[in-house]
């Protein structure tokens, strides 16, 4: 028994507690930064920018140059489900990867994805040296 009644076990417990604290804190920070599920959808329209998480299902209606575009986020994918444009090209295809991009050019609505995962992990179409 030393000064202030501090004993061996106290020191061991304090070291343990600090270690657990650091591990949990790092875990939380790491989860926040590299969660993988933190992919975000960025929708840009002529009037505003919108951000939504890719892992929550929802339908988003936005105002474009010529009318309303409706987008659906479902099962980690985003796609247009209705558009006021003539060619309706934007309704084809859904995207889920951070490198992908869809847009309805006539309506001025552009959708891109961003990922918290490092750029090196992302799919690359082609590399030219």
């Amino acid at each position: 028994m030393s000064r202030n009644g501090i004993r061996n076990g106290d020191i061991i417990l304090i070291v343990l507690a600090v270690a657990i604290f650091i591990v949990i804190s790092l875990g939380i920070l790491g989860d926040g930064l590299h969660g993988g599920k933190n992919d975000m959808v960025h929708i840009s329209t002529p009037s505003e920018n919108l951000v939504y998480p890719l892992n929550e299902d929802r339908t988003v209606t936005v105002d474009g140059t010529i009318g309303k575009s409706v987008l659906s986020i479902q099962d980690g994918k985003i796609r247009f489900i209705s558009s006021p444009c003539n060619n309706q090209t934007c309704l084809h295809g859904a995207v889920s990867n951070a490198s992908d991009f869809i847009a309805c050019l006539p309506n001025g609505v552009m959708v891109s994805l961003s990922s918290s995962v490092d750029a090196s992990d992302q799919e690359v179409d082609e590399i030219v040296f």
Partner: protein
Amino acid sequence: MCSRIHPSSSQLAFLGAACMFFSMVELSIPRFVPFFRLGLSNLPLLVALSMGMDFSGFLCLLGLKLISQAVVSGTLFSYVFVLSLAAAVSSGLVMYGLSLLLNRKGLFSLSLLGVSVAGALASNTAQCLVATLFLGRQAMLLFFPVAGLGLVTSVLLGLASNAFVSNSEFPSLFCSAQPQVAVQGSVVNDKRRSSSLLKKAAAVLMGLMMVSIFMIDSLWYKGGVLAFTMAVLLAVRCKVHPVRTIVLIVSVSLLSLFSPYGRVLFSIGQFDVTLGALEHGLSIGLGLACTMGLSRLIMLCLDLAGKGMLALLLVYVGQLGEQFALQRKIAGWKPSSWKTAADVAVVKVYRGDIVD
């Protein structure tokens, strides 16, 4: 030190009163991090463990501490109580388990310091986990400041309780005698009014409002209820805590911004501040503030303070407060005097030796 003891109900009431007294002291200290507590009210728990209280007695004391803390802070009927419950159960089990190692010899011998630190970590972890139910996943971001500060304060608390146990004559007094009640008359007795029918109806109404907070997801409605609650509290001359409330709402809103959705209002570097997240955070923050205010009103309506099993406890709380203030005056305002004052006050009240 005596062997495992099962405390009498008046001994429990006395220790519970000490918990309540420290909760009051704690409430008078301003808080900078929301959801963070110094944990002063754990001092009596630590002292009880060092005196070898048995498990059932300790559980009772834990319950008394939980309820008296909630009554003092007015959070008995609000979400905060769930947080405190999780904290009390987890830290209580950890602290009791470790207390079995107290005063052993060898490598794993412990003092109250280790018990306090482990209890604080368990309590803060449980609290943050339960907070995610109310605030969403980003509530875990609170873990770093809350548990970090908790480690520091729990070391101080552990050292303080070690010092108390080794210097005070209270532990041996507790093991050898029952607490006495010095009747002073002034404290509780005649303050008990039965709740009138009107008050009970008001309590039910407040309860319904509390439920509606969770059903109606409108910022205007929640803001209105909060304003109403504050107005009623002011009308019945209760303290409202505007700064505390605003800090709560602002910090919850900030927390919510970490999961952005909706229109981008502006960006700070890579970080988008979004309208949807802001509204979501405000909604939760206002809701929490409403439940806390309504909880206090419900307790007022039900006249909770001053009933049955808490009566004796309340007598002790009053006496502890008076004696502590008195002893501080006698001991002077030196930094070391609070310890002596607390020590003398506790012993005097326990002996019923307080007629001056």
